[in-house]
Structure formats: C-alpha cells, structure tokens
C-alpha cells in the first residue's frame, strides 16, 4: 500500500505559503482598486506607501522597530496555539507586562545599566505570564473557556492602564496622562542613532530562533505539540496535558509581556502613556495567522504589516488617501488566510480518504470520557 506520498507532502507544504502570498497580493490589489475607484492614482499611492515604509534609513528603521513587538506577540500566539490554546488576550498581557516593566524601571532605582533593563524586562515577562496564568488557571480548574477569559481580560488591562497613568503612576507636574520618564539605565540602547530602532532587534530574532528550536527539539516542545495535536493521545502517552496547556498560555503571556515592556523601555517618548500598546496585540495575532504559525515566517509577516502601517501615514500626507485603508488590506489578508485554512484542510481530508478507506474526513464522534 505504499503510495508516492512524498511528492504530495512536498506539494502540501507549499500550499500554505502560497496561500499567504496570494492573500497579501489580493489584499493589496483590493486596496489599490479602492484607491483607483476614489479617483486617486494607484501608482503614486503605492510609491508613497513604499517610501513611507522604506524610503529612508530612518523610515526603514521605524518599520523594523514597529515589527518587533508584532513578532513577539505572534510568537506568543504560536506557543499557545501549538498546544491548541487560543490566547486572544495578548494585548492585555502586553499592557500588564508594560505596566509591571515600567514599575521595575521607575521604582527600582540604583541598579546599574544593563542589569536594570534586564530586571525590568524580566518583571514585564513575569507580569504578562501571571496575567495569562489567571486565564490558564480558570481554564484548567474551572473550565472557563480561555478565549472568552483572555478576551475580556484585555478590557480589564486597558482600564488598569488608564487608571495607573492617571493615578498612581502619573508623572508629577505634567498635564498629560503618562508615567515619569524611564531612567536611562532601564532603556534599550539605540541601534541606529535618532531612530526608534534599538538593539532589541537581536533579542527578537534570537527569540524567534529559540521558539522554533524549542518547539521541534525539546521535550517541552514535544509535549506542547502532542497536546495540541491530540490531547487524548498525549494524555494516554503520559503527558500531563493540563499543566502543559497552562504553561503554554503562560509562556505565551510572558512573550506578550516582554513585547509590552519593550515598547515602553524602547519607545521614543521614554514614558508609558495610555496608548502605548495600541493594537499591537491584535495585529500580532494577524501576523501569526499570516505566518501560518511558523515562527520564522512571523518575521516577514510582521515586517509586511508594519510597513503597511508605517507607509500608510505618508500615503495619507501625500495623496490624502486615508491611512486606515491599509486596514482594509489587513482585513482582506486576514479573511483570505483564515478562509483558506478550510480549503487546505479539505484538500487534506480528500487525500486521507484515498489513503485509508476507513478514515472519516470530518470529526469523528468521540465518546465522552468520565473524568
């Protein structure tokens, strides 16, 4: 019964990336069609979009800097999702990580420079992890769906941030709602002078490699993948799936927390303000979906979304095309990628049907187990 399966594996491996690239192409095409429909020259819009993102060294640096938190959030999603936990609370965990990291930066004075930054980042990670841990615990011990709890905890985090920048953490003597200025000892050093790009770019790339390696080459990664692929089989094989799933969510939250802390500690404003995490959390999920949950693919996906955002500003300035149009691009890309998942699965189930006659293409009725 050996069939030429390897060629089909190769082609099925290519379906995913092809779909992502096609999704981006269609997303861009739709956006430029709208621009043309509005009577603006699409060619010039494209030029403006590109110039805004990569036109100068400074702009390119800003685009790369903008992609870093997206990559971290995407990694967070990927880790949770490898155990099939859906963490839509990355935004909230980012915010909490930002707040706790800022606290460490502001209220733990006297630590020498590189250490202070490390401590603040670590506290940010822990903050995000604990915040995600609440949802993980509710899921494991109380059966609360983690999608609902993490989503709702985003709002709590937003309110918390809103409160701390107005109340306990508000910088004295200033009118705007923001924290005091982060001491230099806790700030990311610039990589390129007078640009938002810091040396954390190396850390982020390193983390991408680490997560990719962890998932494939460690026992923890194996446990995550087993739990995600078939929780019952994993349990029968002796994996403690409940704690693995909780850990997946907490690592995920920790990565988001790091992203949040990094935004404050590496931001150009050098303060924590109310909008510091705006939309990074959700956009990071889009990055992960576009990357089809592959850690390395998150880098180009994040760069793409960051450049759309970054370039959208110049497009608006030059042509008066609203920068929000880039959200249309994002939306179409998202729809395409998520929609195509079903198509890819369908293609797969047909193959299954051929391979083994007794497979069921759909979900098999599974006996409820008394636990």
């Amino acid at each position, binding site marked *: 019964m*050996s069939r030429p399966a390897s060629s089909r594996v190769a082609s099925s491996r290519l379906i995913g990336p092809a779909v992502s690239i096609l999704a981006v192409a269609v997303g861009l095409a739709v956006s430029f069609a709208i621009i043309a429909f509005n009577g603006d020259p699409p060619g010039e819009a494209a030029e403006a979009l590109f110039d805004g993102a990569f036109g100068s060294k400074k702009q390119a640096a800003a685009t790369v800097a903008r992609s870093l938190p997206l990559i971290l959030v995407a990694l967070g999603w990927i880790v949770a999702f490898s155990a099939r936990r859906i963490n839509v609370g990355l935004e909230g965990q980012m915010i909490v990580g930002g707040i706790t990291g800022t606290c460490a930066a502001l209220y733990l004075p006297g630590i020498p420079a590189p250490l202070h930054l490390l401590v603040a980042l670590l506290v940010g990670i822990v903050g995000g992890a604990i915040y995600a841990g609440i949802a993980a615990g509710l899921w494991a011990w109380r059966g609360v769906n983690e999608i609902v709890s993490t989503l709702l905890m985003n709002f709590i985090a937003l309110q918390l941030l809103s409160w701390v920048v107005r109340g306990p953490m508000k910088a004295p003597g200033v009118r705007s709602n923001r924290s005091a200025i982060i001491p230099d000892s806790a700030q990311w050093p610039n990589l390129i002078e007078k640009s938002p790009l810091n040396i954390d770019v190396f850390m982020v790339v390193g983390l991408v490699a680490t997560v990719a390696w962890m998932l494939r080459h460690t026992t923890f990664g194996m446990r995550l993948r087993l739990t995600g692929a078939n929780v019952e089989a994993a349990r029968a094989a002796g994996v403690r799936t409940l704690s693995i799933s909780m850990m997946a969510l907490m690592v995920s939250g920790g990565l988001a927390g790091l992203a949040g802390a990094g935004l404050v500690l590496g931001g150009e404003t050098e303060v924590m303000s109310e909008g510091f995490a705006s939309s990074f959390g959700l956009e990071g999920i889009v990055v992960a979906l576009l990357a089809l949950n592959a850690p390395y693919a998150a880098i180009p996906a994040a760069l793409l979304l960051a450049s759309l955002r970054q370039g959208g500003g110049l497009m608006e300035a030059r042509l008066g095309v609203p920068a929000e149009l880039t959200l249309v691009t994002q939306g179409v890309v998202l729809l395409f990628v998520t929609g195509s998942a079903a198509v890819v699965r369908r293609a797969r189930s047909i193959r299954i049907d051929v391979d083994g006659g007794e497979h069921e293409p759909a979900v098999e009725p599974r006996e409820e187990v008394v636990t």
Partner: protein
Amino acid sequence: MADTDDQRSGLGSGVPTGAPEPDPAPDAAPLLRLSGITKTFPGVVANRDVSIELHAGEILGLLGENGAGKSTLMNIVTGLVRPDAGAIELNGQQVHLRNTQDARQLGIGMVHQHFMLVPTMTVAENVALGMQARRPPMSDVPRIADELRDVSARYGLLVDPYATVDSLSVGARQRAEILRLLHHRAKVLIFDEPTSVLTPQEWVHLSEVFRDLAAEGRGIIFITHKLDELLGIADRCTVMRDGEVVGTIPAAGADRQTLATMMVGREVVFRVERPPVKAGDVALEVRGVSLETQDRRLLTDISFDVHEGEILGIVGVDGNGQSELVQVLTGLVSADDGEIVFHGDERRVVTPRAFIDLGGAVIPEDRHGRGVATELDLRDNLMMADFATSEYSYHGVLRAAVINSRCDRLISQYDIRAPGWHIRVDQLSGGNQQKTVLAREMDRQPSVLIAAQPTRGLDVGAVEFVYQQINEHKRNGGATLLISTELEEAFTLADRIGVMFRGQLLRILDADEATVSEVGLLMAGEETAA
C-alpha cells in the same frame, strides 16, 4: 394499512420504470449500474474503470482491503464525491448525482460505520432533519414518529421514535439508521460494516431484515471484512483491490480462502496457531474495580487476574463498560473503588505515566482518539510515550540522532509502509497507523499489554500482523488483556474468555471449552436478556 401503501408507492416514485419487481428477470435493467467509474485524486487513482451491477432483490457483498477504493466508490454512489468518468444508472436511466440530496431523493441511502445521528435528538427528529423542510422544521415530527412506528413494526426493527439517540444501545441506533433510510424510501441500501457493533444474535436478526428488504425488491450493498457473514447472506460478492474490481463471483460455491486471496492478492493464513500457555506469576491483578457517574454505574465490582504468558480475552457488545475498563486500567480515569496491581508492585496505576512506568502498554480501541496524533509526523507518533526518557533526551533536549535511528529501526522492524519518519501519520493507511501504535507500545518490552479492539477496521493482512505481534508478546512471557467485540478474534487469541455485560464481568470461561453460542448468550446478558 394506508401507510404501507404509501410506503410501496413511495418506492416507485421518481423512478421512470415504476415499482421494482421482486425477482427480476435476468435481462431486466439492474437497479443500480455503475459503469466505468474512474476517480482520481491528486496523485492517486482511487477508482479505475469500476463497473458494478446491483439487481433489485439482490444482496451484493463488497469486499476489499482498506484503501481498495470501496469508500470512494460508495461516496460516489451517495453523491458525496463526483466521478471523473463513468456513468451511474438507476433502473436503466442515467442519473447525475450532484450531492447527497440528489442521491437520497433517488432512493440511495447508506448506513455508515460511524452512525450519522445527532445524539441529543430523538429518533423522529433525526429523521426529520434529513428531509427537505417546506414547513418549519420539526413540525412534522409527530407524523414522522407515527410513520416510523409503522415501518418499524413491519420490519421488526424495534425502536421508540421518541427515544433520544444517546439513550439507545448501539444496536438500536443502527436500527434507527435503517428506519431513517426506509422512511426516506431508499431502494438501494448500503451498509458499511454493519456487524461490528452487534452480538451474533443481533446479526442473525439483522440478516433477516436484509432478506425481507431484498425480497421487496430493494437492493443491498453490504461492505464487510468478515467473510463468513458475507458468504452466509450475499447473493454475489464483488472484490476490489487497488481501486479496481478484481472480480464478482456468486456467493454460493465461493469460500473464504478464494475471496481472501482475491482481496489481498496472495494466500492468506487464517489459522493462527495459538501458542501453548506457559502461565507464570500473576502479572495484572484487578480487584473489585467500580466506576460510576452521577446517574450511571459504568463498572461494577470487576475482578480478574492475568498471568504472565497468558491472554485473557474480554468480549462483549460495544458500550458495556469495556472502554471504561481500559481507561481505568491505563490510569486515564481513576476508579471509585477497587485496586489494580501490577506484579504485586506497591505502586498503583494512578496516571497514564504510572501505567507506562509499571510496564504497561496499550493498543487503544479508538486509533484516532488515543492511538495516534494524525497531524503529527511518524517520528513524533513513534516517540510519543518515551521521548522524555534519558535515552532519548538530555536535560529536556531531544537527542535527534538516537531518535531518528530508533524510528528507522521501528519502521523496518514493524514493516510500517512509509517513505520515512517525516511523513504525516494521516497519510498512512489504517493498517500502517496501527503498526505505528504497535511499534511504539511493544518496543519498550511491556510486561502487560492491553489490546483494545486491536484489529478494528484493519484489512486481512494487517490483522494477521497484529495477531502475530500479540502472540509473540505471549511467547515472550508477557501478559495480555485482549478486549474485543469480535468473538472470532477472542477465540483465535485468548486462552480464557470473559464476558462483559452492563459494566459487569459475567463469567470467565476456558477458551477451549467455551462455545460461540454460549458466549454469545452471555454477551446478550443471558438471563437478563429474556
């Protein structure tokens, strides 16, 4: 009997040639004719120029190993898949099936191996679900229920139309499925492995229903692996292999050796020699295990021993507590009461990890549920249970080289037909998936093997392999608990046979002295059944 008339006229509706006659003349157009059906999926020919005829009043057996193309063919007949080439004729008229709705309206129906009923709804509601509603859905339920009662009385298919499906026994669910087809006025009825969930006695009853249905001029396609059953009831048998029809022979005069050879393409050994018992110490001791949920007792006071070098078979109709027993034994579920002792060891099986550490191995009944993780590759599946041991990992980092060479060895040792360990398991056939499970579980030299339905859904060749492995384990002095719904399997392998009924272990018999009918009666609950 107005409804009966309705039923009869319904049989003919939509068919140009009118109501089918019982015992048609040989030259009459067949009820269903498939000619030259070809279906290609990317890279694979699932069906190549398949032609099959089913006459009214006929029971046609369809045989073939997994992957032979039976499923694809039946998916084509029921409108799920469209063929690339070939024609489907009903009563001599060519039809085009665009979807399952078309097939159903033309009177083609199928009882799937995994029943397609909504468990939380009543039987009548399930039947109503499949109808094209012109009025608000479910407003027809009382009428349907009445009709179902008539049909069910007529064929002796006793099911309460108002019972919710999850309260029904497996056999009753199957009857409900058949009722649904009859209510939809199916003329061509396809049964995919209908006997795997039945006691021998239930099968006798079902086979009578088959004959009644055929006598009315319906045609039945009966897919099975069990050659004996097929020979007992079918008029003709069609055998498929590698997407093609190998041949169609009359059942009268055929024997199982011929059919099996046609299926597999080589001679098959049916008699598996049962190695003599060299019973050693007690390896697995189960004392008074009970399990219950809020409203149901699942296991009641189960006690037995399995010795080294012995196979204890536990038979019973599906759903009498066997699954729960396996879950308790393997540490997935903790029993409310009782003890499970391995080799007199102090430690108890409280988690699946403890089960493995104490020398246990399990072939789970639901391969896709617990056996393999289909979306992972073969290597992950082979390593699932012992990747964390110091042999295969070092401080949490997997030793890729050791793991890869072990996987290469297992693939050749257990004859897993795969191009390599990087292949995803859902691209393997059922037999190779089961070999993957066997390789993983047997390679760590377990002292106690729990084999639950180890050959379910496997083809003849793979069954042979599984039996050899289990007997090999026995020869090496391992203890085996075999849990099976198939009596033949239990009699082939087991040294002693216990029967489970409603969560109780009724009796343990010596396999050499027990008879099939004796065990069959116990499976039906013997005294309670009457």
